[in-house]
């Protein structure tokens, strides 16, 4: 057997160091523990947990899911146990995981985001915060924070003030120009941007002429959204200097590598976890194998290496 040199898969996002670029996408990996019987969590780049709000949220009425061609729509409604139960019941277990834990937070007002960041700031065992700005701002008639650069900047600024933890802002794809959104949060203290969140969509049952989701609209995820996600990641990586984390339809190592070629520092794997609970670990191994096979000694050589001519 040929001896292969050690390949460096390390990635830095702010002060957070990941052993490899493969993270889990919020809302698709529970609070981590659900996957411990399938995946060696220690081997992952980072574990991103389900979005947490100040108060527990019950979520939307069912049906909350529907499968669509090469993808799925979800309208979970951000159901979660709330910050108090998270800190009490979930975090102690997560502290035993070697990979950094990223807490995804969501709020209805700028103040709620800031309060969440403040409460997580002095907590042991948290690697970074990921701010989900795809939530309606109740003080602005329910316009989504992530749809407006001014509101996105305001959330980022408030969270930045409340914490010294590395800060990732997760962008919504339901905007005209993703570059403007990425720049807005980068200018106000984000250490990284992750994208994309789900694309707003809907499905209709022709027989009953009813929407297939009780909430009518839902978020599209899975392989169907990968081309859109790749395009947006490429645009964002060209617009900001902070690390970009690529998300959207990543099912295998080749998909992840395409995002890295487009300019991503890291990736998050979402819907693939439902299809194959071992997906994240297999993607880590697949990336190593690809680099070895192609004699590429570090991820940096590959990052943003898209050839345009």
């Amino acid at each position, binding site marked *: 057997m040929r001896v292969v040199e050690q390949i460096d898969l390390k990635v830095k996002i702010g002060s957070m160091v990941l052993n490899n670029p493969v993270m889990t996408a919020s*809302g*698709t*990996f*529970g609070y981590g523990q*659900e*996957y411990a*019987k*399938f995946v060696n969590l220690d081997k992952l780049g980072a574990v991103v947990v*389900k979005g947490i709000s100040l*108060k*527990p*949220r*019950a*979520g*939307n*009425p*069912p*049906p*909350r*899911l*529907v*499968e669509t*061609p*090469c*993808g*799925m729509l*979800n309208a*979970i409604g951000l*159901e979660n146990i709330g910050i108090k139960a998270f800190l009490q019941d979930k975090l102690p277990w997560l502290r035993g995981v070697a990979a950094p834990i990223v807490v995804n937070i969501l709020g209805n007002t700028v103040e709620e985001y800031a309060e969440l960041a403040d409460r997580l700031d002095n907590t042991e065992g948290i690697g970074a915060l990921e701010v989900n700005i795809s939530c309606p701002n109740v003080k602005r008639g329910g316009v989504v924070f992530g749809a407006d650069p001014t509101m996105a900047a305001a959330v980022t600024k408030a969270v930045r003030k409340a914490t010294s933890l590395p800060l990732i802002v997760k962008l919504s794809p339901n905007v005209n120009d993703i570059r403007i959104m990425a720049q807005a949060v980068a200018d106000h203290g984000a250490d990284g941007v992750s994208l994309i969140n789900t694309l707003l969509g809907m499905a209709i049952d022709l027989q009953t002429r009813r929407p297939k989701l*009780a909430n009518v609209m839902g978020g599209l995820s*899975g*392989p169907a959204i990968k081309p859109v996600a790749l395009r947006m990641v490429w645009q964002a990586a060209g617009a900001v200097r902070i690390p970009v984390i690529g998300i959207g339809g990543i*099912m295998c190592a080749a998909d992840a590598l395409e995002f890295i070629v487009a300019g991503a520092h890291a990736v998050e794997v979402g*819907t693939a*976890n*439902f*299809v*194959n*609970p*071992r997906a994240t670990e297999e993607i880590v191994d697949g990336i190593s194998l690809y680099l070895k096979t192609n004699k590429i000694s570090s991820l940096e050589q590959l990052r943003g290496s898209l050839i345009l001519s």
Partner: protein
Amino acid sequence: MAGQYLVKIVKKEQLGKEIFRLTLHAPEIATTARPGQFVMLRSGGLLDPLLGRPFSLHQCRADGSIQVLFKVFGAGTKRLAALAAGDQASLIGPLGRGFDLTPPAPGVSLCLVGGGMGIAPLFLLAQELKRQQPGLTIELMLGARNKAELHQLADEFRLMGFSPLVATDDGSLGYAGLVPDLLALNVPSAGKARRVYCCGPKPMMAVTANYCQKQGWDCQVSLETMMACGISACLGCAVKGVGRRGGQVRYLHACKDGPVFNALDLDWTSE
């Protein structure tokens, strides 16, 4: 403990126009699963259909094989029906909370009520109850749309030593009408206390649950919901529970809190 397995299809049977039974070699599941638990089954490799589909464990055998019994609805089940012996499939399981098998109070008989493909898990349940509680009366009430969908399954129960009462929507076999009606029929155990285990279409389970509540009987139902993960990660399988939690609607999750629930814990008025 649940695991993920790439398994071989040992056998495929067609029991009716759209009804299939797959036998899969999955010793880890066959030896640990409890009645009422389910698996997420996927026919490998493809991005469309994307997600696994949940199926109750129909039978678990000493030779390390398991069976699922299903009806073709859409793309996922169509694809599974196209598999043949020798093909591989991906399997996650055993998942969820099964039926409560603790012995009932003295004098209470056990009654299994199944409609359509809801009959599938009753095979494993009936066998296990008979093994664990050999002295008890186990009644079986089965319903389907017509004779073609029901007669083979009913015959198989007879071969296992049970005497099922049957009902069909069109009256082509047994009683003409709905299965829950059989609960009120004048059979030897009528008037005695029962514990009911029920699986079938939601309206049929609602009628059964309602009847049991009026009689003061214990009723366990196995629910079907849309599921993406089956392992309590996506929160997509919510069902409305009775009561409220922190001033909000109380949702339960079919893949974790169920799929078998005590009928009294569920809000039957909601969709």
